[in-house]
C-alpha cells in the first residue's frame, strides 16, 4: 500500500482518482489486507451464531430448533454478501439494437479472439492484469486473485445513461488498461471471498466466465 493517497497527477494515472483522493492506491498488499478484513468480518458475523447454537444444544437439547435457526443465520449472512457481489455483474437492460451492434463491434476490436468468444457466451470480458484476472461486466468487475481461491467484486461503472452494453464494458476496459491500480482504487468493493461462494450466486452463463478467469489465475 502506498503511504499517501492516490493522485491523478501521477503520470498515466486515472483522472478519476482525484474523486477518491482519501483512498490508498490499490496494490497486492492492500488487496491481501482487504481479503483478511473480509474473512475476519465474516467470522465475526457467523461464529457467534455457531457458538450460540452449540451452547444451546449442550445446555438444553430441547432448544435444538432455536439452535438450527442460529446455524441458518450463520449460513445465510455470507451468502447474502456473495449475492451482493454477484449483483455487480448482473446484465442491465439493453438499448437499441443498432447501437448495441456498433458498440459490440468496437469492443470486439479491443479484445482478442478468446475474450470475444467468452463475452458472447457470458456477457463478461476477461482481461489479465497484474493484480489478478479481471472479468468486466456492464456495471462492475470481478477480480480473481492469483491462485484462484479468492475473488473481489467491484461496483464500478460509467455514469452516462443510455450507453449500450458493449460501450459500458469498453469504458471499464480502457480505464483498467490505462491504470489497473487506479481502476481498483476508484471501484467500490462489494464483496471479497471464496470463488466457490460467489459461483453459486452468479447466473448460469456467468459461472462459465468465472471458471475461465479462475483457470487463467491458477498457479502454473
Amino acid at each position, binding site marked *: 500500500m502506498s503511504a499517501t493517497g492516490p493522485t491523478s497527477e501521477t503520470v498515466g494515472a486515472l483522472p478519476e482518482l482525484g474523486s477518491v483522493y482519501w483512498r490508498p492506491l490499490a496494490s497486492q498488499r492492500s488487496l491481501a489486507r482487504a481479503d483478511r478484513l473480509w474473512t475476519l468480518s465474516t467470522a465475526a458475523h457467523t461464529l457467534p451464531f455457531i457458538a450460540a447454537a452449540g451452547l444451546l444444544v449442550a445446555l438444553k437439547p430441547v432448544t435444538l430448533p432455536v439452535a438450527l435457526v442460529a446455524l441458518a443465520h450463520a449460513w445465510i449472512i455470507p451468502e447474502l454478501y456473495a449475492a451482493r457481489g454477484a449483483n455487480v455483474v448482473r446484465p442491465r437492460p439493453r438499448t437499441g439494437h443498432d447501437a448495441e451492434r456498433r458498440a459490440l463491434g468496437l469492443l470486439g476490436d479491443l479484445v482478442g479472439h478468446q475474450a470475444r468468444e467468452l463475452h458472447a457466451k457470458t456477457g463478461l470480458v476477461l482481461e489479465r492484469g497484474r493484480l489478478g484476472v479481471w472479468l468486466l461486466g456492464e456495471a462492475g468487475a470481478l477480480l480473481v486473485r492469483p491462485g484462484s481461491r479468492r475473488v473481489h467484486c467491484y461496483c464500478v461503472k460509467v*455514469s452516462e445513461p443510455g450507453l449500450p452494453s458493449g460501450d459500458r464494458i469498453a469504458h471499464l476496459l480502457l480505464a483498467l488498461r490505462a491504470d489497473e491500480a487506479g481502476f481498483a482504487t476508484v471501484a467500490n468493493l462489494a464483496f471479497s471471498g471464496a470463488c466457490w461462494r460467489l459461483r453459486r450466486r452468479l447466473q448460469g452463463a456467468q459461472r462459465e466466465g468465472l471458471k475461465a478467469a479462475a483457470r487463467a489465475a491458477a498457479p502454473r
Partner: protein
Amino acid sequence: MSRLIRMDQTGHTTLAEWSAEDPVAVQAAESALRAELELGYFAVVTQGEGNAEQVRELPVDAPLVILRRPIAGG
C-alpha cells in the same frame, strides 16, 4: 487513416479522421479532441491488447483515439 471516436448512445461516433501527412485534417482532429476534453471526456489510445494510455494531446501517429466518460464506484 487515423480516427477519433467517441463512445456514446449510438455505439460510437467518428468525430475526426486524419493522416499524419495532412496538416489540415490533423488540426481539425486536434480541435475536435480539445472540444471533447473540455466537455469532460477522457481520451485513450489503445496500445495493443492489455495496454492503453490516457492522452491530453492528439497523438498524430495513433490509429485510433477513443473518447470515454469518467467512471466511478457504484
